[in-house]
Every structure is written in structure tokens, then in C-alpha cells.
């Protein structure tokens, strides 16, 4: 019990977030600088330029020099930098930096040097609005857009009552949504997009080293008034619970049983979702923001259905040739298809030329600048199979070159397929005016640079033993 009180004091010294905020370009020039506290001089920017921007070997996103810590995030050709002299909350600072980046992307369409320079007035407005005295404030993009805009016409004519409404939204219990009567749609619609990024790492032998799904459910809600939504998935824990209890009103779905249910390792929700409800009975209820938002993210690792199988055979023939045989197989039904399939097959660094042949569909070519064979298939129907065979010619080098053997990477999209098996069971909308609403659901599974198989370059190493110790 001593432990609780004896660490009491140390905790007190930890709350301040960030004390200064900068944006640098690639050359280390300051584009935006905002000092929230006075503990800094402007020259602090020079320190960052010297220590990080012009240092080619930065091995940590946080650098502490003396008592000053620099948190930086690189985005395109910019550095977003937060500075503090305290024992700051590192996770919060980085989350804040990324939120800022997202806000900029949403406002200017992209975040790069040009867009920041052209909109620096808005950027300053934003920086001051989302952070006061180092403490992050409301950073909901939807709300911010109601009173900080890229056109400078609003404010002068803005009536106080409009402002009152905005401020109420910016601070309210539902800070993400304008108050009830403001939102009106002729047609009440809600679009749900289930997007799954499937990560897979296969070994050379074709076994799965790891497979998981990072899913997120994107929602576009065009619903009038203050709609109360209930959202249901084929979450195993919910289905099981339903099966145990008496077959209640949801009996229509109960017959599907637990076989189709998906086991979610973890879910995270938009702040509109009532977390206590979810904690109590895993129900997802919320008042949605108006327009587009990310309702939830989830992660699944069990029973992942891999849409594509990749079977590579890479053989080294002597020291001057490497042959590749790569086969792609689809595992989903013939009604579906994978689109934008791109397979990238790395070749050794001393490759001079590659002959490629294809069985099935697609086009392939060798890209010398990146040392890869790129194989593109616009559409691959379910049940189809295709393969590539290639022969890489190598220059004979005497020096042993270290080659990292990057994995073979596959990129694709499959519509109306979820690798986790997740299904949206229902989306119910309740509103006091009792209007009818139309809901749409789409599913998409894609790879995002994380669908990889390690190739098995069969190596041909001769051991030359010069000196052997003899045993007695």
C-alpha cells in the first residue's frame, strides 16, 4: 500500500502537452511557428534544423537535447514538429500531430509545402483553435469547418446566434453534430463502407507466419434531426449471447448460428459511440456526426480468409541466373473478382536483365530502377489462377553484396468480400419525426503494402574452411 502514496508526487509533474509547434520544409525552413509558452526562443527552430533536418541518421521520432524534446512526424516533404521542455504525454503529442495533418488534408486536399504556404492564414487559425496554451481543444473536422473556412467571407456577417450555435456544437455533449433542427435532408440515407486491410506474411514454404485484418467502418450519414442509431455486426460475442438466451425478436438472424460469427480481437470507436453501452453488452449505439466519419476500427486475427494465394519458387541457377515461378490463386467465389492486382517481385541488386513470361492474364515488366518485376493484373475472377515465370540475368560480381531479399508484395482489392468474415447485420435509425431511412452497405478488402511472402532464394554457399581446430 505504500506504493500508492509514495509515487503520488511524481505523478503531479506530468500533464503539460506541447509548448511549441512548428512546420518545417525539407530544407529546414520554418513555414509555421507557434509558441504556446514563452519558455522558448525562436532559435529553437535552428536547433531542430541542425539536429534533425540536416542529420541523415535520425533513429527516433523523439529527440531530446538538453532538456528540450522535439517530437517530429514527417509527411510528404514536411516536418510537423512539437516541442516541449516537460515530461510530456508522448502518445498525445503524436496523436495531435496526426490529427493536425488530417485536418490539413481535409481542408486543403493534401498536405505539402505548397498547400501550407498558400493557406498559412488558415493554418494559423487552425493551430490556435485546436490548441490553447498547449492543451488540445476541439479538433473535429466537421465542426471546425463551420467556423474556420478557406474563404474569408463568413465572419463579418456572422450573426451572434449562428456563432452561439457553432460554439454550442464545439463544446457540447455531442460536439460532433449540429443541433437537431439544423440538419435536414429530403432523402434520409446512410452509407456504410466496411473496408478491410488484410495483412499477411507468408513464409517461403507457403505457411502463414501472421495474418490479420485491420478493418474500419466508414459511414456517411445524411440523416435529418438528431438520429439515434443502433448498429449490429455478426460479432461472435453478441451472437453467442443471443443463442444462449431465448430466441427473441432477432430470431430471424439467430438461425445463422455462431458459424458465421466473426471473432473481433479488439474494436475502437468514434467518440460518438457510447463506450459504456459497448462495455456492458457490446451494443453499438450512437448519434452520428453529419456527413462522413469513421464509425469504428477493429482488428481480427482468427479465421482470416486470404483472398489470394501466392506460391513462389525462386531458384538460383549457378551464380549468374535466378529463375522465378510465381503462381497466384484466388480463393473466393467466381461471382467476385480481385481488381488492380499488382505483384512486385524483387530481384537481386546485380540483375542486368529479366525475361518474363505469363500464363493467364496480366502484364509484367522488369523495372531496373527499383530492382523489381512488376506484374499487373487488372481483374482476376474468382476461381482463376495465373502464373508468371521469369529468368533474371545477373552480372558476375566478385564482391559479396548484401541484399536484403525484400519480400514479394501483392496489392489488390476485392469488392463485396471481407477477409475477417464480418457482416453488418443491421443499422437501425430512430428519430423523433420517425422518418424512413435508406441504408446501404458495401464491403471491400484490400492489401495495403502488408500482403507479403518471403521468397526462398535457395542459396548456394560454399564453406571454405581455412583453419580447423582439432579436437583431442
Amino acid at each position, binding site marked *: 500500500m505504500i506504493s500508492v502514496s509514495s509515487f503520488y508526487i511524481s505523478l503531479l509533474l506530468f500533464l503539460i502537452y506541447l509548448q511549441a509547434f512548428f512546420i518545417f520544409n525539407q530544407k529546414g525552413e520554418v513555414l509555421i511557428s507557434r509558441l504556446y509558452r514563452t519558455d522558448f526562443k525562436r532559435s529553437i527552430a535552428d536547433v531542430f534544423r541542425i539536429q534533425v533536418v540536416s542529420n541523415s541518421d535520425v533513429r527516433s521520432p523523439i529527440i531530446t537535447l538538453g532538456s528540450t524534446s522535439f517530437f517530429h512526424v514527417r509527411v510528404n516533404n514536411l516536418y510537423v514538429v512539437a516541442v516541449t521542455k516537460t515530461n510530456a504525454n508522448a502518445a498525445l503529442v503524436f496523436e495531435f500531430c496526426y490529427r493536425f495533418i488530417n485536418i490539413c488534408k481535409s481542408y486543403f486536399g493534401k498536405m505539402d509545402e505548397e498547400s501550407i504556404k498558400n493557406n498559412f492564414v488558415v493554418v494559423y487559425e487552425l493551430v490556435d483553435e485546436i490548441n490553447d496554451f498547449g492543451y488540445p481543444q476541439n479538433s473535429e473536422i466537421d465542426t471546425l469547418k463551420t467556423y474556420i473556412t478557406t474563404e474569408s467571407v463568413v465572419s463579418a456577417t456572422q450573426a451572434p446566434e449562428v*456563432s452561439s450555435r457553432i460554439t454550442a456544437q464545439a463544446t457540447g455533449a455531442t460536439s460532433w453534430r449540429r443541433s437537431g433542427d439544423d440538419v435536414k435532408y429530403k432523402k434520409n440515407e446512410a452509407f456504410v463502407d466496411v473496408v478491410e486491410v488484410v495483412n499477411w506474411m507468408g513464409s517461403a514454404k507457403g505457411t502463414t507466419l501472421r495474418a490479420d485484418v485491420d478493418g474500419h467502418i466508414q459511414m456517411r450519414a445524411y440523416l435529418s434531426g438528431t438520429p439515434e442509431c443502433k448498429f449490429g455486426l455478426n460479432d461472435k460475442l453478441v451472437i453467442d449471447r443471443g443463442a444462449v438466451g431465448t430466441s427473441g425478436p432477432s430470431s430471424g438472424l439467430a438461425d445463422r448460428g455462431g458459424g458465421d460469427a466473426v471473432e473481433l480481437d479488439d474494436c475502437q470507436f468514434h467518440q460518438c459511440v457510447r463506450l459504456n453501452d459497448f462495455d456492458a453488452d457490446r451494443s453499438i449505439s450512437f448519434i452520428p456526426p453529419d456527413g462522413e466519419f469513421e464509425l469504428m476500427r477493429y482488428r481480427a486475427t482468427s479465421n482470416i480468409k486470404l483472398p489470394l494465394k501466392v506460391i513462389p519458387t525462386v531458384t538460383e541457377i549457378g551464380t549468374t541466373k535466378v529463375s522465378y515461378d510465381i503462381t497466384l490463386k484466388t480463393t473466393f467465389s467466381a461471382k467476385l473478382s480481385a481488381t488492380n492486382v499488382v505483384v512486385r517481385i524483387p530481384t537481386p541488386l546485380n540483375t542486368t536483365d529479366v525475361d518474363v513470361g505469363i500464363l493467364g492474364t496480366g502484364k509484367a515488366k522488369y523495372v531496373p530502377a527499383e530492382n523489381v518485376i512488376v506484374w499487373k493484373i487488372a481483374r482476376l475472377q474468382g476461381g482463376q489462377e495465373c502464373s508468371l515465370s521469369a529468368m533474371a540475368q545477373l552480372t558476375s560480381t566478385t564482391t559479396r553484396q548484401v541484399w536484403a531479399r525484400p519480400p514479394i508484395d501483392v496489392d489488390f482489392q476485392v469488392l463485396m468480400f471481407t477477409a475477417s468474415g464480418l457482416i453488418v447485420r443491421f443499422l437501425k435509425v430512430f428519430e423523433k419525426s420517425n422518418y424512413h431511412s435508406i441504408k446501404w452497405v458495401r464491403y471491400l478488402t484490400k492489401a495495403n503494402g502488408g500482403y507479403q511472402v518471403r521468397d526462398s532464394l535457395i542459396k548456394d554457399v560454399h564453406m571454405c574452411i581455412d583453419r580447423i581446430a582439432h579436437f583431442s
Partner: protein
Amino acid sequence: MSIKAPRKGENYELSVDLNSEYREKRKDAIKRVIASMTVGKDVSGLFPDVLKNMQTDDLEQKKLVYLYLMNYAKTQPELVILAVNTFVKDSDDPNPLVRALAIRTMGVLRAEKIIDYLCDPLQKCLRDENPYVRKTAALCVAKLYDLKPELVIDNGFLEQLHEMIADSNPMVVANTVAALTDIHIAASSQSSISSNDPALFPISSSILTKLLIALNECSEWGRVAILNALARYVAKDDKESEHICERVVPQFQHVNGSVVLAAVKVIMIHMRGVRREDLIKQLVRKMAPPLVTLLSSPPEVQWVALRNINLLLQKRPDILSNEMRVFFCKYNDPLYVKVEKLDIMVRLAGENNVDALLSELKEYASEVDVDFVRKSIKAIGQTAIKIDAAAERCVHVLLDLIDTRVSYVVQEAVVVMKDIFRKYPSTYEGIIPTLCANLDELDEPEAKASLIWIIGEYANKIDNADELLGIFVDTFTEESYPVQLQTLTAVVKLFLKKPDSSQGIVQRILNTATKDCDSPDVRDRAYIYWRLLSTDPGAAKAVVLAQRPPISIPRTTVAPALLEELLGEVSSLASVYHKPEETFVGKGRVGAESLQRRTDAPDDRFSTQKALQTVAAGQQAENLLDFDDAPAVEGRPSGLAATEVLSHTPAAANLLAGTSSNPLDDLVSIFGAPATPAPPSANSHDIFGGLGVNSAFSSVGTGSLGSPAVQSPSVAVPPLQKNQQPEDDLLGLF
């Protein structure tokens, strides 16, 4: 003058435009002024011109002028006073956004003159009907306190803030909590603070209730502020701890990683008070998935999460026991993420998942980044030492790696191999020929020294050991000191094991080492050996060929007391660095006084002593682990060395520079006061007499350490890797 002219011209142009009769032109000029300000040009001369544009209906223009004011108010205090009227007027504007803007800006102007005018508007704004204005005003109180604390106290703003904790608007509550905490921190860094100072913000149980209600309603950042406040609450009994944990757990499902980590922190703190085993189990179980999910965040957040997971695992190794696969490195992970994952994977390694781990590590060892490759190979060695059953598999992987004949891979593998020999003596002698086959490849001192150690250790089983060591004896003077020291010891071992055939080589090396060597350490060691060998070969044998204590992987990398402290600060910079904040925060607001305060608390004294003891023990244990020969010779200095560090190193200086990696220093810094642990009782033993070698050892090993020496948790670096270094220091003491 001629250099200044163009700049003057530019400012002159701006000043003309700022006074233009056209609105658009004026506004454009302000924008240009701000642009110049951003790139660091001095536009303070335009102060009066900019100020004229303050009174406007255009909210954007107003914001720009305010931005300018914030920047230059400090350098132009006389002129700021001209802006006061507009500020005061704005703080009464019908538009709440304007009111809030005025109060927000006034708070950061930091000019003495304007502060006195701030109090009245602030008073009003704290009671504003609009929550947006109230939440802005709440933070403004903190700004004012930062500037002139007495004004805050005299005007009763603190009482008002305390009332605002019960505000109906969750955002106002969150900012109020943030402001009160900010003031609390500022106040508690003063040395002359009394425990009932009004500026302090103790969390009472009535505040607790309000915070728990607001927690579920406010914005993500507000939740972090509230969770931080909850972390400070001292629960009355286990029921209350349970209640807090149960209320905070739903926050694990928040999409914002900082909310999740803040919730983890609160749970880790209040779990200490929970007595129900089932609840603890449940909390730990619920903690795992959100931690894993953090690995899908952007790399920087991931890194912060990984560093914290590393800490959490030291306290509760069971949290992620089934999740090792999620820590497998992705090819395109940034290096800092990969290195952290590597460490965690070894922590999670067990007999059930070691095969998967080894095939991963082998894969990593073929990547390009030398640093990462070396760390991967080290990880293989650590796995071998951690899991006895897997040692053989690890050795096979290492052999495969040695086969690649990539120089740094081979060298690192040799270094790692030495540790494996150390842990499993006489088990893998069969691979010694393979290692020796790579003798020519080695050019790094550590690898050379490791191989030499192995040869010396198994000299009696290697037929041509004298020939192999002869290579190093030939080049003795050109080698680095660690290699020289190791060669010296290995040759003496060889001589003791095979006295007949190696008389010549031992004579030669003792001669070279005592005559031609410029390192006093090497010379001294050679003299000691020489004397030992000439006076009493039996004693020499007992000393040089003594049984070595077994080694193991430390379960924790920081001292237990520090670990507890860091777990109370999850997601902070301190928890990322695994160091107490004094090591990097410096003098600022939290300086020496706060250190002093810590030692004043009576509760702390107990843990201070306890922690220092642990550290002293750890320090000795580290030394014990490090010597690889002649334990008795070093048994004594290890105690002395520990004392030495304490009395001679100005620990504080080290800390402020943030350079210390010595766990001892860290601990000293927490408690601020110099302390001298009692030297171990080994002093009385005659180390040259060959007497009581074992007893001296055991007294150091168990008696005075108070903990099993080898597993002492405060060893910062797995000790095996730095084989020679402390030895140098120690022998230097003679």
C-alpha cells in the same frame, strides 16, 4: 546603412499598405506582415500600423492582428496598452467567438501592463452563458497564474475554477481540470509551498465523482486530461479502486491512442489497490487487445506504445503471452519500431513459440541495416539463454548465420556464442572448429575477444589452441586493450591446463605485456598473473580457472522502484525513455526543489533506501556478472567500484546532461541526495592467498546483496555483452 535600406523599404511599403483606405489592401498587408514574421524577419516596427487594424468586423483579420500582438507584445509593452480598449470591448461582444478570442489572446500577451486589465473581463467570461467562452476562460486562468500568481489568488479565480468542475458542459470540465492541474504543477514546483496552498489541486472524492461522469461525455483530449487527474487520486479503500477501474475500462475502446494509454495508466495505478483477484485478471485480460491495436497506429504512436508495452511486460509478463506474432517486424517498419519489437519478442519468448521466433530472427539477420541485424543476432543469443530447451536450436540458427560469411553477421554471432558457452558450459564444444574457421574474418575487438575467451576456456580440448592463440600473441601490441586483456587471460588458462606445451607462449606474452604494452591495465594484470604463477600455481588455478556463476537474462531493465514510478506515468516521455524525468527535463519548472520535496515525504524515505539498496546490489551484481575470470580478484573491487561511482561522480551533473545510462545514477537522481551503500564484506579476504575464494565469493554473491546476484533486475544492459569494460576500471584501482 546601405544594407539596411532595402529592409526598411519593405517595411515602409507594408506600413503604407496597412494604412491604406481600402480594406482588402490592408488585410493583404497584414497577411504579408504575418508571413514575414513567420520566417523570422523583424516586423516589430510596424506595431502601431498593425494595431490600427485591430478594430474590425472581419473575424479573420482580427485573428491575424491578435497573432501579431502575441508575438510582439513582449517587446513593445508600451504600445500594447493601446490595444487594451479593443480587447475589453471585444470581451463584451455579442458574438461568443469574439469574446472567446479576446480572452484567449489577452492571456498570452504576457505584458505586465495589460494584465491588470485582464481580471475584470476574465471574471465575466468565467461566468459567461456560453460554454465555449467558459472553457476558454478556464484556461486563461492558468495563463494568468503562469504570469502573476497573486492576481489569480486575490481575485478568487481558483475558487471559481473549483466550482466549474461541476459545470454542465463536459468540455468546460475538461479544460477546468487541465487549468487546475497546470496551476498545481506550477505551484508544487515552488520550494516554499505548504500543503494547504490554495493553488494545489488535490482530487477529493466528490471531485472524483464529477470527473467520472464527465469522462464519458467529453472530447478525446478532455478525456486524457480527466484520466490524468484520476491517476492522481488516492483511493480510500479497495472498493473505491475497483470502482475507478470499472469506470475507466470502457475507455480502452477509444479510437485515440492517447486516451487508451491514459486509461492504461489509470488502471495500472488503481489496480495496486484492487484486492479481488478475478477483477485483476479481468483487467489484465481487457488490457491486451487495445495494446495490440496500438500497433496499427502510425509508426511514431506505435513506438511510444511499444516502449510502454515493454515497461508493462516487466511488471506483468503475462499480459501479452499469446500475442508474440503481432510483434513480428514488417519489412517496411521504421528501424526504431523494429528494434523495439525485437526486444518485446524476446520478452514474450517461451517454449511454445520459440520456433516461430527463431525463424523470424533468422530472417531479420539477412536484412540490410547493420544495426538491426546485429540486434537480431543478439536476440537469438538472449533466447538461447532464456529458454534452456531451445538453446540447441538457437545454436543451429547461429551456425547457419555464420555460414553466410557476412563479416558483421559472423562477428556478432561469435560474440553471442560466447554467452551461450558461458551459460551452457561444455555443451556445444562441437562447434568450436566452425568458430575458429572464421578467425580471419574477425576484425572487431569484441568479436576477437569473445573468440579468444572461448579458446582459452576450452584450451584443453582444442589441440592447436597454442597455435591459435599464438596468432594473437604475435600481433599482441597492435591489438586493442580488451583483446590484449583477453589474450593474456586465455594464454594463462592454456598454461594452467596444458603446462607442458605452453611454457614458451606464456613466457612470451607475460614479457610482452609487462614490457611493451602501454596500457597500465594490461601491464598490471600481467604482473598479477606472473606473481601468481611464480608463487603458487595452485592459487593461480583456483583464481583463473574458478567456477563462474551462471548467467541469465534480466527480467527487468529498470529498478523495481523506478519501474513502479514509470508505470504511473505511462505514455509520458519518461516512460518512453525508461528514465525518470529529471534526467531530461532539467531545471525549468520542475527542478531541484521538486527533487528536494520528494525526499522530504516520509513515505519516500523508506523506498529511497530500499531502492538504493537494490541499485547498489544491482551494480555489484553487474560487476559480478561481468568478470569472466578470477572472480576473487574482482570480488573486492566490485564493492569498491560501486562506492567509487557514488562518491566521485557528480550524479546531478550527469543527469542534467541527460547522458547517464548508469542505472545507479538514475536512482540517485530520484532522491537527490548522495548516498553511500556499505561496501560488501569481502574486504577482509586475502585475494592472493587462494584462501576463501569461494567464501569471499559467496558473501558477495548472496550475503550482502540481499538478492540472488545474477538475477538482480537492475542491470541495464544484458551484462554479458560488455565483457571487458568494467574489468578495466576495476583492475585500474590496484
